[in-house]
């Protein structure tokens, strides 16, 4: 067991293994990167409230001594938030269970393979190369993800959700006023559920997908790049489109209230092309 109270920039290296990572920060930057070597905590900025690092029974905790009870409220007060400003980077083995909370600021996670939970109130979330179960929740701000596989759950109120070049088995994305953009190299039988209230939904799936498709929008329009999925029919402005791509093994469900939906076909290079071309 080890404890540090850090009140100036400092770099810590942990000799004992880490299996769980819990971070509770108020404002600033948080970076979590998977790495082969020993776990490291790199604190590059601290303000008046020191950062506490605890390592006990494989659980690594990074946070403040007395976390404000109503972080969102305190953050709005501004002045108090500034006392908690910190910039922390953590390198941990790829198979840790990570639970990351940040009230305000930017958060980067890369390379984790098991179970990652991200909760940011206001700020931006960047996810790269994650596997396993990933859950990211932001109230205000975007979630940008690249090369993510496994199970993915994304939620934002007033930001955009963008998922680039990813092959997840299951995606659930919900946005209220932002748009959703997904480019999926989806495996067969994947399950994709996208919903937006006032934003639009753009989703591109492999042209050789097996999906049962259901698209619905109350006042937007539907564009489909697949001949078997139509532009939708319904009463007045309501558009509802059902269709099947390939054998229909997986599921794609997208619903937008006032936004439009575009379903596009992603060209698939055959194996030989993939060997030789970028």
């Amino acid at each position: 067991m080890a404890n540090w109270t850090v009140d100036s920039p400092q770099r810590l290296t942990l000799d004992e293994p880490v299996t769980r990572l819990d971070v509770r920060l108020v404002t600033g930057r948080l970076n979590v990167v998977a790495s082969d070597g020993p776990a490291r905590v790199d604190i590059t900025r601290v303000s008046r409230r020191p950062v506490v690092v605890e390592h006990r029974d494989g659980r690594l905790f990074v946070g403040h001594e007395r976390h404000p009870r109503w972080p969102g409220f305190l953050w709005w007060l501004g002045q108090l938030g500034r006392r908690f400003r910190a910039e922390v980077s953590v390198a941990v083995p790829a198979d840790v269970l990570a639970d990351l909370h940040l009230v305000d600021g930017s958060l980067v996670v890369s390379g984790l393979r098991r179970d990652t939970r991200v909760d940011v109130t206001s700020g931006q979330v960047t996810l790269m190369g994650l596997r396993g179960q990933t859950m990211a929740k932001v109230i205000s701000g975007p979630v940008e993800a690249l090369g993510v596989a496994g199970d993915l759950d994304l939620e934002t109120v007033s930001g955009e959700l963008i998922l680039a070049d990813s092959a997840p088995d299951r995606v659930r994305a919900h946005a209220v006023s932002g748009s959703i953009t997904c480019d999926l190299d989806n495996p067969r039988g994947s399950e994709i559920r996208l919903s937006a209230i006032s934003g639009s939904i753009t989703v591109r799936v492999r042209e050789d997908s097996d999906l049962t498709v259901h698209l619905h929008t109350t006042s937007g329009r539907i564009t489909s790049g697949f001949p078997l999925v139509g532009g939708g029919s319904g009463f007045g402005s309501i558009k509802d489109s059902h269709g099947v791509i390939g054998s229909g093994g997986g599921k794609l469900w997208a619903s937008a209230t006032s936004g439009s939906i575009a379903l596009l076909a992603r060209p698939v290079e055959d194996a030989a092309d993939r060997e030789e071309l970028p």
Partner: protein
Amino acid sequence: MTAVFSHGRLRLYLLKLLDDGPKHGYELIRLLEDRFLGLYAPSAGTIYPRLQRLEVEGLVTHTAAGGRKVYEITEAGRAELRQRADELATLESDISASVEDLSALAGEIRSEVRGSVRDLKRELREAARQTRRGHWEPPPTRPTANGGPAAHAESPVLAEFDQRLAAFTVEVSALVRAGRLTDTQLRTAIRLLDGALDGLRRLLR
């Protein structure tokens, strides 16, 4: 991040990875990705031409196994590695340094993801526009596979391009067969062609 791999250092590192045992291209990409904590994941278009060049130079060989090429280092490749051991050590320490500073690394990850995301949004917006247009007035020919703003098949410029391309092939192969060239000259010519192809790919993608 890619700055670490300037001046043929990626080539050297590929040799080093193959020195640990035979691997196929995809494995090499994964290993590089792991070494750079997921940040640097070179595309197949970066790796395969380099492997081909290494093969032309006789430093690696490949065997086809289950439809995939498995690359293996040759004795000449090992000799090259021994000769450039110092350079390799510097490269290793540069790589370690580049992943040492976690917050800089995270900054790179952020800009990498941001860049990809921005490109994707632009590409999909264009694809959606084309799909929508295609929906209302189906074009006589299917758009090209990558859906870019391809010229019409009948365009005179495209015809001229096809003609030039054919003439190029004919003339170059005639030149190569006419003059009795040494292997080195031929290899240089091959490298030149690879370079030109790389440039065109970059231009046209």
